């Protein structure tokens, strides 16, 4: 019985949250309107804020897809190193580029839709450390993946995934 009441209370809370979400949605669009031009502003690296955010999202998706390719292979029962190695290289290359994807001005204040939190720019040392951790783990993964030791590769894939998650947990918008 108590379980059912907890569920009910929580479901009501979810309904209430959904209502709050709707309200904040309207204020968001109101706040975004004056900043709409900021998306077309050109950054010191020559691309617009909007383009920079698009590149960042596309690249992060490529890293996610590469992680999925590796994870799928590891779980397939007969992992193919020929499939794993190119995906590892994608992650390694992107991991070194990652700090350049977040120039100042490409946060939520730009009005462009992004899940990047303002905390990235407020806590630069923390963000850089998280990015460095990924670069280190990805480099190690690249080293291990030159060999054939699937157990070692698997362990290093998990460590690399942990670095992804570490940064997401701190610097990416949570789902409501």
């Amino acid at each position: 019985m108590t379980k059912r009441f907890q569920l009910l209370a929580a479901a009501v809370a979810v309904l209430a949250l959904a209502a709050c979400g709707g309200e904040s949605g309207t204020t968001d669009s109101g706040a975004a309107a004056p900043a709409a031009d900021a998306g077309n502003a050109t950054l010191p690296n020559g691309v617009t804020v909007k383009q920079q955010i698009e590149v960042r999202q596309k690249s992060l998706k490529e890293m996610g897809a590469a992680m999925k390719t590796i994870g799928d292979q590891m779980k397939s029962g007969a992992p193919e190193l020929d499939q794993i190695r190119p995906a590892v290289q994608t992650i390694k290359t992107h991991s070194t580029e990652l700090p350049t994807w977040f120039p100042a001005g490409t946060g939520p204040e730009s009005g462009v839709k992004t899940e990047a939190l303002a905390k990235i720019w407020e806590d630069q040392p923390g963000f850089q450390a998280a990015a460095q951790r990924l670069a280190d783990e990805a480099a190690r993964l690249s080293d291990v993946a030159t060999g054939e030791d699937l157990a070692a590769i698997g362990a290093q894939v998990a460590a690399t995934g942990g670095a992804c998650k570490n940064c997401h947990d701190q610097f990416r918008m949570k789902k409501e």
Partner: protein
Amino acid sequence: MDAEAGAKPQKVWDGPTRLFHWLIVGLVAFSWWTAEEHIFDWHKASGLTIAGLLVFRIYWGFAGPETARFAHFIKGPRAIFSYAGSLFGPTHKLAFGHNPLGGLSVAAMIVALVAQVTLGLFAADTDTGLDSGPLSRFVSYDFAEVAGDLHEDAFNILLILIAVHIAAILFYLVVKRANLIGPMITGRRSNGVTGPAEGLTRVPLWRFLLGAAIAAAVVWPLATM
């Protein structure tokens, strides 16, 4: 109602249906908790168990005793509106099994659970790409990502249906003075009998065993994938 209070308790819910119900209550709560706490291995085990229970329950909707059958409790709009209209009238009686409105609610919860489990099978965790459903590796990253997002969003629909279900039970308890929780535990009801006085007819054991075997045959390959 008083005249019937002394009647022999009438059996309305069979054992497998009650067991299904309470296992779903526990496992949905457990799945929710393990999702929030990111305990993925247990979340997956819980989801696959729910998948097996759903396979069994759908089979039981055709092979089980009367009150468990879809044909018994899934009614057309006319019956549903007619029941809703008579709810406060003098002719209102407790249904033998699900009433037309309750049947609609149960069907909706089963559909929502099937959708939830199916999305989970294909979902991929976009944090690490590692904690993913057993069928996720057969679909693209984009597909798995969408399935994962919907798996998270659609849970709210399930919670709303559960809230409606509990609110209806409280309504019957407080307003109609009818305890629907007891019968779902004991299987028996002693007042306001409608339907056959002798209650449910027994279903042969082999039908239950066949359903359990079908459920296991569907889920086992997914669990070992």
